[in-house]
């Protein structure tokens, strides 16, 4: 059996392009249907990354921008596995994260929120999964912040996550939320997702087993990328 194409993306669990309660989507969503493509070599391949691309400190947001002290805020470990829909680990794949600081302020020249910047916190990190698809970061739990959607819209605390997988069809950007955050059910961006179970899957769980006593609280967040079919009777991807 040779592996071949990836499973069709289940668009019923992903947000549609047009979700008017998240206002920016109204002018940025295509009106025509997408054209569905069977995978070719252009889709089943994708960039690969190695340890030369990144540095060991890149996954430690407590240290990777610290100038003279640790950043202020709740110290957390964020860890989990990257798996595919067949529950197979996705090894050696690049995971990148970015986030606001404990005040809900981003280190970005376009962010003008009143919440204070932290001179010792950058807010981005990256790592490669190991051979079991496992990854971990250390960071500060981000704060909620306001945004101009409705007058009184607040994003729940979240960390943005970008993952590559082994193929361009697996490319994914998402956001992780934190268990118990009361802002989650109010957020129009969260609610772009039509499927309640798919929303639950974006909520990182408190993980006391991985918590480091007297040091950092842990949250566990597993990421699932598209799975790949095994061709049982034919392999016509490239015409053989």
């Amino acid at each position, binding site marked *: 059996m040779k592996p071949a194409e990836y499973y069709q993306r289940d668009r019923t669990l992903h947000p549609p392009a047009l979700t008017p309660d998240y206002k920016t989507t109204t002018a940025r969503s*295509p*009106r025509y249907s997408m054209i569905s493509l069977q995978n070719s070599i252009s889709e089943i391949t994708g*960039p690969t990354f190695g340890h030369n691309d990144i540095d060991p400190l890149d996954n430690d947001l407590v240290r990777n921008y610290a100038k003279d002290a640790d950043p202020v805020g709740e110290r957390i470990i964020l860890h989990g596995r990257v798996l595919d829909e067949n529950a197979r680990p996705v090894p050696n794949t690049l995971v990148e994260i970015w986030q606001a600081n404990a005040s809900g302020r981003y280190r970005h020249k376009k962010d003008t929120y009143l919440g204070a910047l932290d001179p010792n916190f950058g807010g981005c990190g990256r790592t490669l999964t190991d051979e079991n698809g496992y990854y971990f970061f250390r960071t500060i739990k981000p704060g909620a912040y306001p945004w101009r959607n409705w007058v009184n819209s607040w994003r729940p605390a979240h960390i943005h996550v970008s993952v590559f997988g082994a193929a361009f069809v697996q490319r994914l*950007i998402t956001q992780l939320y934190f268990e118990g955050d009361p802002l989650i059910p109010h957020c129009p961006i969260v609610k772009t997702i039509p499927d309640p179970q798919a929303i639950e899957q974006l909520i990182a769980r408190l993980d006391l087993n991985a918590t480091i006593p007297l040091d950092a609280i842990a949250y566990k967040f597993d990421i699932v990328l598209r799975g790949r079919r095994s061709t049982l009777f034919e392999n016509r991807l490239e015409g053989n």
Partner: protein
Amino acid sequence: MKQTLNYLRETASQTAGPYVHIGLAPGAAGFDIYRQELGQDIAGPNARGERIRVEGLVIDGMGSPVKDVLLEVWQANAEGHYAHPEGGGPVEDGFRGWGRVITDFETGEWGFDTVKPGAVMGRNGRMMAPHLNLWIVSRGINIGLNTRMYFGDEEQANAADPVISLIEWEQRRATLIAQRSDLGGIPVYRFDIRLQGDDETVFFDI
């Protein structure tokens, strides 16, 4: 006992938001943190083939340039091979085939330098015309948009391309084809992406 399929479900997408640069292009956000940002060198100095520049705008449904887009490109080398174990053949040392660019905060222009890819073997032995695979994320885009850029000076290959010919509306095919100009030395392909409205770019569910 009821049988179950037991597949996991893909993690749902969310918008990259307005501050995607912090994570994926921190220099543009206004700070240096990494030894090297990824995706800046697509082809590498050893790459064979014609050096080209690709540039354009992403335009919203109001006709305005979108100024907070992050765009990734995935392409084959001049022989039509991808830098991947299943990429169809070897590539030059340092040829990555992947790049990441952002739009200018003031003008919305994006661009990158690379080499022109070769034709790629498609399904069932049908050759695909040279193309770039593009992926676009930004605030207001809930799930990354996939499209392809083809080359205006490859008319014959484009006419035989199995993906272009899947598009039933012939007038929409032109939205995927970049026009070439040779202004000062290196060829420039212009590719404006229209998210919505008249001449909306074709997007693919890949």
